[in-house]
């Protein structure tokens, strides 16, 4: 199991996401996971080896390193990426459950006019409405919470996002206040700022997606209410016709561009 396997799982959700969701997945895997794996891990690779304190007292370096870096930046980022990606699994599970139910109905002969065969059920995009809307919205909500929580933990643990080149340490067994030098502080600061910026962008994308989903639902329900008010006799027929038209136009769009409305 590695980042590639996680990408395959999350990538599967991509088909059923909104356009903003697809951008979010791209930002996460290219600007965060890939940067973490190919660059950041090299920068932090020798963090403890090259952490040097101006003393020969055994144990002083270990204790000072542990005090200033209770959890390494790299590990925190890895955990943040895992926690932020996993709410998408809720959507994946819901879609899998929906496809399973549709397959059962198809086998009983109920949805033969909607789908050609079992493969068609698996290939077709599932629309974000009804119960799936709630699952999708909750997953976005949890993503935002996790991102914010990890950014706060970072800020709290390291007193900001800047790494100094020298730290003063006087914890036992250090005999006095010793100078401890971090390896590559500027490079680490650059990557920290980069990862935090990518985090902020992802959070903004999630907020935008949440607003989009809420507006879409409000717009749909106000449209339905308006139709019912204007044509109370034909309201039911028209709403069904509208849904059919939407389904047809959405599937047509998907066939051409591959993006949802």
């Amino acid at each position: 199991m590695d980042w590639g396997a996680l990408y395959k799982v999350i990538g599967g959700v991509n088909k059923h996401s909104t356009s903003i969701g697809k951008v979010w997945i791209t930002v996460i895997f290219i600007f965060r996971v890939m940067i973490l794996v190919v660059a950041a891990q090299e920068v932090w690779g020798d963090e403890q080896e090259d952490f040097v304190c101006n003393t020969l007292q055994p144990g002083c370096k270990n204790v000072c390193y542990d005090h200033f870096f209770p959890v390494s930046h790299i590990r925190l980022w890895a955990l943040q990426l895992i926690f932020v990606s996993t709410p998408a699994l809720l959507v994946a599970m819901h879609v899998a459950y929906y496809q399973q139910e549709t397959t059962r109905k198809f086998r009983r002969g109920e949805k033969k006019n909607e789908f050609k065969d079992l493969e068609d059920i698996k290939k077709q995009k599932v629309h974000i409405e009804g119960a799936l809307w709630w699952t999708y919205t909750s997953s976005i909500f949890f993503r935002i919470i996790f991102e914010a929580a990890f950014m706060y933990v970072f800020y709290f643990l390291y007193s900001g996002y800047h790494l100094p080149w020298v730290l003063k340490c006087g914890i036992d067994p250090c005999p006095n206040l010793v100078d401890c030098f971090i390896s590559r502080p500027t490079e680490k600061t650059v990557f920290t700022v980069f990862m935090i910026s990518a985090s902020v962008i992802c959070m903004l994308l999630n907020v935008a997606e949440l607003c989009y989903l809420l507006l879409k639902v409000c717009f749909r329900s106000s449209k339905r209410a308006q139709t019912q008010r204007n044509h109370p006799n034909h309201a039911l027929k028209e709403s069904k016709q509208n849904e059919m038209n939407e389904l047809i136009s959405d599937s047509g769009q998907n066939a051409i561009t591959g993006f949802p409305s």
Partner: protein
Amino acid sequence: MSWMLLRDLLSGANKYSTGIGRIWLAIVFIFRLLVYIVAAEHVWKDEQREFECNIRQPGCENVCFDYFFPISQIRLWSLQLIMVSTPSLLVVLHVAYRESREKRHRKQLYVSLGTMDGGLWYTYLISLIVKTGFEIGFLVLFYKLYNGFSVPFLMKCDLKPCPNTVDCYISKPTEKTIFTFFLVITSCLCIMLNFTELSLLILRYFIKCCLQKHSKTFKSSVCECHSLGYTECGETRAPQLLQNHGPSFDTDIPPKGEAKLLCDTEED
């Protein structure tokens, strides 16, 4: 040979699991295996090199490290992952055995290879019990070996050849403690899921058995149970396979109700 092999083998087990079994698998893959590979492994990478004792006596550090860490936490973690994941393979093996039986007899012996009835139900149950046993066993072992789940920053050691009681400092104790607690929490979560799955499986079995007994009392003709080879519901003997029935029953296409006797069929 790497963790990818285990992942591929377990993905095969996913097909024959219940819903809770699939959630368990997702938790193991993402919160245990992935966290182990991308984060935890690196924390313990330099544990012996950075283990420092306040003494220049050669051999003292080696002896003290070996005494305090008879087996590294990270190695215990990887052993736990392997032992906890492999009982799921029993189910895969059983399904493969069913497949080979059908090929040998050249006819359909089971409703579907993955239907959780008969022997496969017992295999699944045993795999759950063994998984839970391993989880609890490893947690207890962790606790006993390291006197709790937290890693101290300083340990006092007076084993030979150390000349007196020396202070020994462990590298990254806080980070190691955080990951150890992470391991314990995910382990407990998996134990809870296993217990829930176990209870649900047993409950479903008894409910269906009671329903059958109930329907038996209203039918004067031969009980539907017999189509699956039950002589008496509630017997400890495993339900027999379709092939063992008398010629008066149509075994080619059994009704779906009986086929899903013990567990919902997982169809992909």
